[in-house]
């Protein structure tokens, strides 16, 4: 059993060399040189807590916040491109202007608190790979991709293949996430995001996003992203299949909610129990579904 020792969070005991490259190439060189002993630091809202608690002890830190071409958010050829070092505040401001990104707007404006949105970045949220990362379900339902780079070149990965476990990603130790890409969204797609927390600005117990398209009562596509109910934020595709191609009514949505319970694998932890998460996940999913469904039908709210 691990001895229970109070951690002094007032100071950061860990010692490390600190680099602030001003361009992307230098960052990649450093990563290549130091590999597994290095951690990229962006907002630091998660990394520094892990370091204070001595969960991780990197020997080198690379601050990427002074690299100007890693922070941007723009639409290009219909795709929404977000630089990995873009702060949440900027994502909230951008998405507030466009209802197409409703789920991402709701997710990003619910991240942490004002101060955390002023510090934390989209890439940081994904690379930390917390099962409860609020951006993940919303980005998953938009079929997002992430761009990773190292000295050898770049590769693009679907976000659903990026998460490998609690705090584990598909990224190699000499890779860095450079941007998040969201394919163009069809007019008429409705999306929504909701989460449950203990108190206002806490880590989510469960978070969930849905994106749907419909023709009248017929559901033509449905994607569900859900977090904090498994080791990784994930799509639950069996539940999605329940509704696609069918006329949507309350009993069908009920059936979808039941299927979701079979697909998720929640744990009991400090925030909730397995049983509670199962029950609430299905309720939350149904609420989010209906919200997205009404939006797809042109409804407000």
């Amino acid at each position, binding site marked *: 059993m691990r001895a229970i020792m109070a951690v002094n*969070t007032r100071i950061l005991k860990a010692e*490390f*060399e*600190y680099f602030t490259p001003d361009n992307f190439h230098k960052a990649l060189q450093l990563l290549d040189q130091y590999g597994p002993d290095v951690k990229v*630091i962006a907002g630091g809202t998660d990394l520094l807590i892990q370091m*204070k608690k001595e969960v991780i002890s990197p020997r080198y830190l690379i601050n990427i916040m002074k690299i100007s071409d890693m922070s941007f958010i723009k639409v290009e050829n219909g795709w929404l491109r977000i630089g990995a070092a873009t702060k949440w505040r900027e994502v909230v401001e951008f998405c507030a202007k466009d209802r197409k990104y409703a789920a991402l707007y709701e997710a990003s404006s619910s991240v942490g608190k004002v101060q955390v949105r002023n510090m934390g970045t989209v890439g940081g949220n994904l690379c930390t790979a917390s099962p409860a990362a609020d951006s993940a379900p919303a980005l998953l339902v938009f079929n997002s991709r992430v761009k990773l780079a190292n000295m050898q070149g770049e590769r693009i990965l679907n976000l659903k293949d990026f998460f490998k476990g609690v705090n584990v990603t598909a990224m190699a130790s000499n890779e860095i996430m450079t941007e998040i890409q969201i394919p163009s969204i069809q007019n008429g797609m409705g999306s929504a995001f909701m989460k449950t927390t203990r108190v206002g600005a806490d880590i989510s117990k469960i978070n969930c996003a849905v994106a749907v398209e419909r023709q009248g009562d017929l559901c033509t596509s449905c994607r569900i992203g859900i977090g904090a109910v498994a080791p990784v934020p994930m799509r639950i595709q069996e539940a999605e299949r329940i509704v696609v191609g069918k006329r949507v009514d309350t009993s069908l949505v009920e059936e979808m909610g039941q299927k979701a319970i079979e697909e998720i694998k929640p744990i009991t932890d400090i925030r909730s129990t397995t049983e509670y998460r199962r029950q609430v996940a299905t309720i939350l999913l149904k609420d989010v579904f209906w919200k997205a469904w009404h939006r797809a039908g042109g409804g407000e709210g």
Partner: protein
Amino acid sequence: MKNQTIDLTVNGEKHEILVEPNALLVNVLRDELGLTGTKYGCGTGQCAACTVLVNGESVLSCLTLAVAVDEADIVTIEGLDQPDGSLDPVQEAFLDHGAIQCGFCTPGMAMMGRDLLNKNPDPSESEIREHIKGNLCRCTGYTSIVRAIKSCSQGREPQAKL
């Protein structure tokens, strides 16, 4: 660890400080510059007692490396004073509305009040509550804190004072 020299403008005053890479902004402000108004609370981003403004944005100084804010413009609770030494209207309002009990959360709360009013001179009650959502007060003084900030907004009826 290689120490680094950083340039900070704190409350309008320029400082050149030699820091270790693992020095946290909250400790540099308190221990190096003697600005003990900024409080260290939880150290893990939960309480926001350590909130300061960095380049005009509210951040948690206990989760900020000093080396990461090299060349930044920082405002702490001490910097809210007016040039003539009088208090900021937000600070006055906290006094007038009894929005202080033990006072530990007050610097962070006042910084968030100022931060919100800088961006939105006429916030609604729900906007105020959303803005200070991440700042914990364990004397449960939220109601008077919200009232104090609201009393500083433009175009509002004066609020009842204590």
